[in-house]
């Protein structure tokens, strides 16, 4: 009798101990598709199972004409040699499989250096920009500072024509 009770209660106890731990781990990591506890809603505050449900035909539907894997841009910098080396090094591992473009990097464009931003048609080349801080003694103090990685010079029309990539900046469009 005692052995039977043990056989039943031991696994139950293990489950009871492990389940909260598992749920805690998932909860602390923002949830996954199976165990997410947060509410996901659309603009009408209606619950949706994932971010992409009900988005067919929306402005940001790039399917069929923009395979993400084929549009990995290259990080580019035309600033000072110092900054170029630093930025290239810092961003070497930064490989965003997104729809982004090499921005205008001439000084006349406000000193933009790198563009890991998402630049896609529906967003009119916007949707995000980053100011990043660099400080690396290997490159000297001249590299300390913030680097604007914005999309000021992006051009929505060229974005459309080139399927949301801007291979080279048209300087005449800078700052427009």
């Amino acid at each position, binding site marked *: 009798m005692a052995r039977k009770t043990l056989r039943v209660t031991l696994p139950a106890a293990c489950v009871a101990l492990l389940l909260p731990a598992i749920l805690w781990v998932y909860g602390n990591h923002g949830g996954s598709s199976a165990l997410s506890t947060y*509410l996901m809603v659309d603009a009408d*505050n209606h619950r949706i199972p994932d*971010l992409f449900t009900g988005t067919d035909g929306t402005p940001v539907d790039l399917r069929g004409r923009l395979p993400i894997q084929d549009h990995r841009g290259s990080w580019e910098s035309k600033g000072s040699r110092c900054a170029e080396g630093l930025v290239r090094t810092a961003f070497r591992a*930064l490989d965003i499989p997104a729809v982004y473009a090499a921005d205008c990097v001439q000084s006349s464009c406000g000193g933009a250096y790198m563009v890991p931003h998402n630049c896609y*048609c529906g*967003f009119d080349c916007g949707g995000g920009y980053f100011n*990043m801080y660099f*400080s690396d003694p290997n490159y000297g103090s001249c590299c*300390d500072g913030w680097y*604007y990685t914005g999309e000021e010079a992006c051009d929505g029309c060229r974005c459309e024509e080139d399927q949301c990539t801007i291979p080279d900046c048209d300087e005449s469009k800078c700052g427009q």
Partner: protein
Amino acid sequence: MTAKLHSGVLAGMALLLGSALASAGLTLSPVRSIELPDDLTAKPIPKWENGYIVRYEIEPVAAVVAYDRNGRRLFRTPLSFPEAERVLPSGVAASRDGRFAVHGSAFHADGLVVPFVAWLDAAGRITRVLRWTDYAPFQLCFAPDGTLWMAGWALRRPGEETLPDHDILRAYAPNGELKVTALPFSSFATSARRHPAKESRLVANDKTLLFYSRTAGEWVTLSFDGEILSRSPVPPPRPDIDILTGFVLAPDSSVYLSAQMRLDGRKRGSSVLRWDKATGAWREILYDNTGVVAVFGAEGDQLIVSRRLPQFDWVRID
């Protein structure tokens, strides 16, 4: 002897520090400093809001990281969503009661891209995610009552020649209810390419909300009901600004900004300016051609600045 030596060294350091930050007859004297436990090199610039430092990361994985006012890390929450191959955060905010928000874009493997904002609780757990198909936020800020305000723009559908008119500002209650929209795009004399939300700043104090559009050269103060209280053109702080590194609305409604200038190609200089209501112009209160000073926030009569991340200094304007 040792004590004298120490006091001499400290006095020398204070003198050096003071002279490094002295400018325009003003000196910013640090009264408190903290250092975050993380290396912020090549990370997006953190944000100070409502007593918290919050920032996001885009690599190696998208994440939100928050710290308390002493620099203690509260959480680091990786961002991932069902069906999203990649998440690209773009901005963050922290509320007075210790909740957080992050906005960005989520990418489906087949090319679908959607903007989103996610709310996080004090432990960093995601509590709610809101997705749009017609709007994308650019800036976030929490009002004192916990309402999340955002500045953004309408999404242009393929084939649409012009951007449809839309309210730039939106405010969402903690329960996700859309409370207010305000500030029509058409009320600005700018093009879609230079949308007023681009390079904008959205900040709040106890009294008002302030939207500053660098592209439109204008700022707007609003009540938390979305009523426009004032609207005025704002001249550029300096002609040679490379990057706007900080924008602060102090508790007494003073406005400060910091900017970084490219001097002779490689060298950079920093400037901190205060809006002078009397003259309707920016007044430089600090210029530093040796470092990278930026303003992050204000508490009482002190500004929160950083000369070298991840360190933050509380300074009183003498």
